[in-house]
């Protein structure tokens, strides 16, 4: 059984702060699920000071790219603060690109000129930068959250980005064993759009059509990795089409016809039939286990025949999801309950109050 890619995630539903060292510890246990060609994390609630602003994390291959990118940012955004992302040099993390972060919001006049909502405006800006500025990638663009990723083993990446210095209410982590593309910084997980961060274990055999479906709605898949489409699918289905989270999961890991037809409730049958008819190109085929972070919560989801491992556990207000139970037990030795989520059914943790 190929055991590529390791995932782990934790959320405090009461909004208690969790240090970045916790998620690093969890990832350390499942070191062997990766091969050192990529590691990454996403933390939520880590920038309380700038909580209303978009926190852009950008990697630049060289200074000219940075200059060009900053021109675009200046043109479109009011930038409150701009700084290098703090890192600790490490032997394990080789030749890092320039890593900067910007806390900003779209300029009012730009929004009215384009007639767009702020979120759509930011998505467009990020897609523009990623497709037109050479050697530059915006790899995080949500509010009060951030993605940290690199080529290297997960725990080394975590130390490199000094994650123990941050606290957040949700953390997700990933160690990569790439299947189709060479390891590069942009290709590590998590993949991000606005406040969605996705870590993924598996390979999407439906990638070709998921990508073409998303392109119809203006999403550009630039990062050469199939996981990218999952982030965009969540954004499309939930933010743009307003589907409830559980329904979006039903679209991506759809129940089988034999089970839909068997349901006595006619309205339910019609609902699921309509979902599959309308969203067939958004069905995600191929083995996958994903953990998704979003502003109000965290979710774990498996493909419809559970070809990749996923384990969940809870203790008090904490919810854990991971590829292996040992990764959870390392940071939570005595959980209240441990269980295996069912194929195609999401495990969801949500913030109860405000943070």
């Amino acid at each position, binding site marked *: 059984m*190929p055991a*590529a890619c390791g995932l782990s995630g934790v959320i405090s539903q009461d909004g208690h702060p969790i240090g970045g060292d916790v998620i690093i510890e969890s990832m350390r246990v499942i070191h062997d699920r990766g091969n050192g060609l990529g590691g990454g994390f996403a933390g939520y609630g880590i920038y309380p000071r700038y909580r209303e602003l978009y926190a852009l994390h950008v990697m630049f291959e060289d200074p000219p790219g940075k200059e060009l990118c900053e021109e675009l940012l200046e043109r479109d955004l009011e930038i409150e603060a701009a700084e290098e992302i703090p890192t600790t040099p490490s032997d394990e993390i080789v030749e890092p690109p320039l890593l900067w972060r910007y806390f900003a919001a779209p300029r009012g006049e730009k929004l009215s000129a384009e007639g767009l909502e702020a979120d759509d405006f930011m998505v467009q800006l990020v897609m523009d930068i990623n497709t037109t500025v050479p050697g530059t990638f915006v790899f995080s663009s949500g509010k009060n959250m951030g993605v940290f990723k690199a080529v290297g083993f997960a725990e080394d990446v975590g130390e490199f980005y000094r994650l123990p210095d941050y606290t957040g209410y949700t953390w997700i982590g990933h160690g990569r064993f790439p*299947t*189709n593309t060479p390891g590069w910084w942009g290709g590590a997980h998590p993949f991000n759009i606005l406040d969605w961060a996705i870590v993924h274990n*598996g*390979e999407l*055999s*439906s*990638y*070709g*059509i998921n*990508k*073409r*479906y998303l*392109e*119809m*709605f203006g999403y550009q898949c630039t990062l050469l990795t199939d996981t990218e489409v999952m982030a965009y699918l969540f954004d499309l289905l939930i933010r*743009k*089409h*307003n*589907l*409830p989270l*559980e*329904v979006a999961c039903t679209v991506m890991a*759809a129940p*089988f*016809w*034999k089970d839909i037809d068997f349901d006595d409730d006619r*309205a*339910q049958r*019609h*609902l699921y039939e*309509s*979902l*599959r*008819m*309308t*969203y*067939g*190109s958004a*069905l995600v*085929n*191929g*083995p996958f286990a994903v953990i998704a972070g979003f502003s109000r919560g965290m979710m774990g989801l498996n493909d*419809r*025949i559970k*070809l990749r491992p996923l384990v969940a556990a809870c203790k008090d207000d904490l919810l854990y999801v991971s590829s292996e139970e040992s990764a959870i037990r390392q940071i939570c030795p005595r959980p209240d309950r441990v269980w295996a989520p069912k194929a195609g059914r999401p495990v969801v943790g949500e913030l109860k109050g405000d943070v």
Partner: protein
Amino acid sequence: MPGDMLPSEFIVDVDHQRCRRCKRCILNCGFGVFDFQSMTTADSSKCVACHRCVVFCPEEAITITKNPLAFREHSSWEVYLRKNIWKQAQSSGMMLTGMGNDLPWLNVFDHILIDACQVTNPSIDPLREPMELRTYLGRKPDSLEIKADGDGGFDLETKLESNIKLDVPIIFSGMSYGSVSLNTHRALAVAAEKLGTVMNTGEGGLHEELYPYAGNIIVQCASGRFGVHPKYLNAGVAVEIKVGQGAKPGIGGHLPGEKIGREVSGTRMIPVGTDALSPAPHHDIYSIEDLRQLIYALKEATGYKPVSVKIATVHNVAAIASGIARAGADIIYLDGFRGGTGASPAVIRDHVGIPLEIALAVVDQRLREEGIRNWVSIIAAGGIRSSADVAKAIALGADAVGIGTAALIALGCRLCQKCYTGNCSWGIATQRPELTGRLDVDWGAERLVNLVNSWSLELKEVLGALGINAVESLRGNRERLRTLGLDATTSEILDVKPAGR
């Protein structure tokens, strides 16, 4: 010596040692090849190599060979070209032919390979794990409005347009009653019902006897409007406007009077023995806005059943398809240049149109670029020969494929291309009562069901190898195809990478 000075194309040889003199060959041949004068004799000039006699001879005493007569070779002046000129010099007229394009044009399907999963992704076993082929044809909404019902469940607020539900993504293409026999139509209807798919009436109307199969029929409304009346329009799950067909883009149909017997006459609602001529254009569709008008007229007349528009694939097929989608069609049927027919001028059949594979690729891409791909389902037809073609067509973007020639071959057709004579020895493309009786409906339906079931099994194996367990994940997934030996431009147009990339 035949008047046109042409040597026979085939030589019929009867082994008189084995011949039992049962005279079955005489009875079976629809073309009058055999006679009995103290022993079985054969007039080879009439033979079309349909093999009926060979199959039914109890002693296997008959062999049919290509006339080995030597012609001096010439790579430009192929023998068939020389023969055509002799025929046309003998009596002026257009070369007529039947079935689909038989010239050695490049076959794009044969230059496309399919991917398989290994190591990084598991293949799925279709015999033991779920594998879904269900397909819905018709218009789909851009998105769905769904609200939580407060009880932990969800309510669907959007109302969907009506769709056709197929158990397999393979349908039977339209072949008119008149060009084919009633038993052929009956076999197709019975098979469609058993398989959970649909057949298409073709442009000759629908015999009353088949109205009970309405749940598995698409009724066609062609330019000749044969047999089109309100009951007919409602005797199907959808109505198809036939604007063109792959075998003869731009020109109408022609059913010679010899094939208009009493039943055909009754179904088409024209007098016995007259020619049935379908005009080239629909005379109420001279431009795209007229098409919209006809589409909605049909929707109003049928309570808004899906309307399909069938077109031949020509150079600007992408733009035409976009126009058709915007005119209100729910399904577009693309008939490639290899599509079959009962009768067509050879020059049109063999030199007009573009390959289905390319048309499919550009239509699917254009509709996506315009953000309207979900407005229509695409049916691809015209030379679908195997489950491999089916898989490739779906990966290029088709919702389903249509089979015509393949269905007839399953019923016994040998592709002799003489359908227009009405002498089909197999009882398929004929109205002569002594011939039509030969096609047993139950036997025919069983053969059609077997064929589609075999292809379904093979299609599931292909899906399994691709690590996919629902056909919607293959649909339009060009990433799982690669071209081999195709020029770079064509690969680009197909948006399929060459093998190795």
